[in-house]
């Protein structure tokens, strides 16, 4: 995550603030480069004053109603690379993302949800990516019980690599002229491992309408 190529301007909008939002912001700020910034929208000055990263040069906090889309747009939300909606309850989030979609139809919306049964509703209603906090936590926790070493490794893989001993999963776009372009996937798997100690885990190919994920298929 840390070393990926970030577009000329990379803006993340956070709607709402709590302990979880602070954790996400911490992860994002760690990975930010010079051209990255974060707009945090909160409903009260009291909440704004509780934001520890408020003084960070990449962070802009605006106190306004969540539905004050005019003010939010003035801060650049229309061109945001991603929008994280982090309100108190799922129902409030669902209504909000539907309204957000009407104003900013092209936003990439990420919504941490509590009720996993609402996953499809979120996708259908507003084409958002819902992610159940509890579900992820439960899966990792179960992994700690059954496969302690796997869980430890997974936690490392989800964290941006900081030292030589850390590992990270990254995605790299292959431009024409890249040495691996035109190569069989099976060869691609072995070459980075032999030459630079990397492991190719998966291939994704873009089409006009969708992104197809090609699994770890040595025949392809």
């Amino acid at each position, binding site marked *: 995550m840390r070393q990926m190529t970030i577009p000329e301007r990379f803006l993340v909008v956070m709607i709402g603030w709590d302990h979880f939002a602070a954790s996400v912001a911490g992860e994002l700020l760690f990975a930010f480069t010079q051209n990255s910034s974060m707009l945090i929208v909160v409903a009260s000055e009291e909440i704004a004053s509780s934001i520890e990263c408020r003084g960070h040069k990449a962070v802009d906090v605006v106190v306004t109603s969540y539905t004050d889309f005019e003010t939010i747009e003035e801060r650049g939300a229309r061109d945001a690379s991603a929008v994280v909606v982090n309100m108190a309850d799922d129902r409030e989030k669902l209504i909000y993302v539907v309204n957000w979609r009407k104003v900013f139809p092209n936003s990439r919306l*990420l919504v941490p949800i509590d009720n996993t049964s609402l996953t499809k509703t979120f996708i259908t209603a507003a084409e958002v990516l819902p992610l159940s906090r509890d579900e992820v936590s439960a899966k990792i926790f179960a992994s700690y019980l059954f496969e302690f070493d796997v869980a430890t490794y*997974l936690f490392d893989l989800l964290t941006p690599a900081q030292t030589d001993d850390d590992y990270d999963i990254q995605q790299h776009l292959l431009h024409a002229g890249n040495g691996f372009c035109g190569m069989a996937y099976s060869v691609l798997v072995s070459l980075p491992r032999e030459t630079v100690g990397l492991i190719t885990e998966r291939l994704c190919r873009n089409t006009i309408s969708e992104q197809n994920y090609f699994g770890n298929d040595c025949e392809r």
Partner: protein
Amino acid sequence: MAIITDTRDDIDFLAEEFDKREVYTLFSNFRSMEVLENANLVEAKMCSSKLIASYVFEPLVAKFAEDLIASAVHSDDFDIQQFMVLESNPYCGESYDSTFFDLKAKFDGILIGLVTWENGERVLLKNPDSPELIIRKGDYLIIVVNGSNADLIADEFGINEGTHSDLEPMTREAV
């Protein structure tokens, strides 16, 4: 299974729903950071925020990571599993590098790490690149598998995935 709860009603519910020999309940303040840390719950909870952050920057990586976190059921599901190496394992005594390529070619599994024992300490070697590294009995191989090849690997290794603390060299000499 042990369940920690700070709600009296949960204790009653669990007592009615589950056999007491299978589910143990503990009435405690599980929101205490000390209790959470002991149970690895803090790291588990942090994973959600890490995953959301990953979706912001690298959505495909995050999607794959989410898949890896969940158990692999179908052939296009992926999962990371650890398999203990028994003496009968065909890769016991082989080099890590040759095992990496053989697992990929034979099972389409990706070996990403090894757990071994050094001076009585459990050591997790992530993507080790030492050509001299030899796989020994009692080690664990950490492999990215899918819903189809996981069982085949387990059959080949003669052991199910997961930790087997009773067989680990530090707790029992003969593996």
